[in-house]
């Protein structure tokens, strides 16, 4: 293994899990997340010579990952989830409650469009600014704002308990 390949191997082994965490939120499924990250890492491998600096690699891989999601935007949406279909027992200190909350959030995220899911992950998981999210997704800042607002509205509608997560008081 030459030095460049070793650098790439080190990069993959160091950053795969971080990429998988984002990919899991984007896809809601372990296998789909692995496929998404695999594709991003493969494209990064193809571009490794051009990247020149290893520190650019993760940004490149994340961009590929999100753009792969962009291509999914044109596909039919996942099955509609209506309000009330998702169990929304208030979460307490019980570990079981936390599990319920996690499942509810996962299902609610899957009910969003891929674009809405991407902006939520970028804004509230990766802590990007609206401008950074817009640049990464190749859309305007106003679109990011619109999609974020719609996504939050939808999350609140799908899982009333999620209102607490997004700052809105339950009525």
């Amino acid at each position: 293994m030459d030095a460049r390949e070793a650098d790439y191997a080190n990069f993959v082994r160091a950053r795969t899990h971080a990429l998988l965490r984002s990919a899991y939120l984007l896809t809601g499924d372990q296998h789909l997340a692995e496929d998404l990250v695999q594709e991003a890492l493969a494209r990064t491998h193809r571009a490794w010579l051009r990247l020149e600096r290893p520190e650019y690699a993760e940004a490149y891989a994340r961009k590929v990952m999100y753009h792969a999601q962009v291509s999914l935007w044109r596909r039919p949406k996942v099955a509609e989830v209506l309000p009330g279909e998702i169990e929304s027992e208030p979460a307490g200190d019980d570990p079981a409650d936390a599990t319920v909350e996690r499942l509810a959030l996962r299902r609610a995220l899957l009910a969003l469009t891929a674009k809405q899911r991407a902006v939520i992950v970028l804004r509230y998981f990766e802590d990007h600014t609206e401008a950074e999210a817009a640049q990464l997704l190749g859309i305007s800042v106003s679109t990011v704002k619109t999609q974020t607002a719609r996504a939050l509205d939808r999350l609140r509608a799908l899982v009333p308990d999620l209102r607490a997560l997004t700052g809105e008081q339950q009525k």
Partner: protein
Amino acid sequence: MTDRLREALRDLADSVEPADLYDRAVHRSRRIARREATIGTGVALAAIVLLASGLWRLPEGKTKEPPYALRSAATATTAPASPRPPATTHRVPAPTHRASASAAAKRHKNQPQVAPTTASPRSRSLADLPGHIFYQQAGADPDVVRLSPGGGGVETVLPKAPSPVGISPDGHIIAYAEGGALLVEHAGGPPEQLATGVSTDDQPPAWSPDGDRLLVESGSAPAVLEVGSGTLTPLAGPLADGQHFRWSGDGSALVYATSFCSLKVAAGGSDTSVPVLGDRQPADNPDGLAACKPTSVDATGGRVTVPLQSTGETGADGPDTADAVVDTATGQVVALPVTGSVVGTSFDPAGRLLVRSRHGDVTTLSLFAPDGKLLVQATEPARLRGLDLLAYTR
């Protein structure tokens, strides 16, 4: 307010199981490479046929007239631009473009190319490569380096460039912006201020082929600066929304990018979109290719060098170094008959195409005449390996 959402997302992300994807990613990368190589071989074979048949030719006719699009679309502010007659020539797509377009049914980034056995250079000596080749370091504040193969060697012409730079067509003047001031430096001389209120985010300084004008970004809009008088003339109409303008070698056309990373050509008073690139319809742009930053244009505006990007990206996302040649009439990526991966491409004002390719540890410079003949093919000095190709000039 949204802290709990953040916390819940982190908690949900913890659900994912660790996985070692190294082998899978490398395997997938190799599959992609094999697929591209298969298609690339076909494209290269088609290129061989085209080269052998002499179809890879460009119109040799030139005019020194400036782009008519500029005259018709510009609105003088500080002083009227000198009257110019409309250009008499029209953009004629190079025959190679249509031919290669039909041959290359699909376009791919970083497509491996196979050297045609029929293309042997007139010279394999670097000293026979005319003109100057400019490079810059990757990253912020790069040094700008000039290689003058004809005896000048390698020298740093602008250390720690504060902005993207524009190299004059003769390779002797470098323009850049610092603190909003547009500065030009003659070889070794002190910087001279030409204008203020200039930025380079969407428009690095771009010299006209005669060296008399610079296309710059002034007040967040593109404008033409008369170097002699300092007069700034903003572009108007559709051109006002363009970015990364580049002049054709004969000055009759401007190629520029839109904010959606498609390309347009302004020539003969009209504004024409380059097909395919930036098109978000998979049926029309199956590979999702886009071009946000044209870097040089051939003699007539028929071909342009670009760093290929993907739809959805912006100019800020992509590299500044061109790695492909695109036919402006068809939007097709032109197959380049060189070995290895193309890591740089640039036209000089005469329409000669310099291709920088890398195979293993060896970087090769190949210079093609406007008619497609391979003039010089030589190994690049190893000390330039870590730099990016910036421009090729007379």
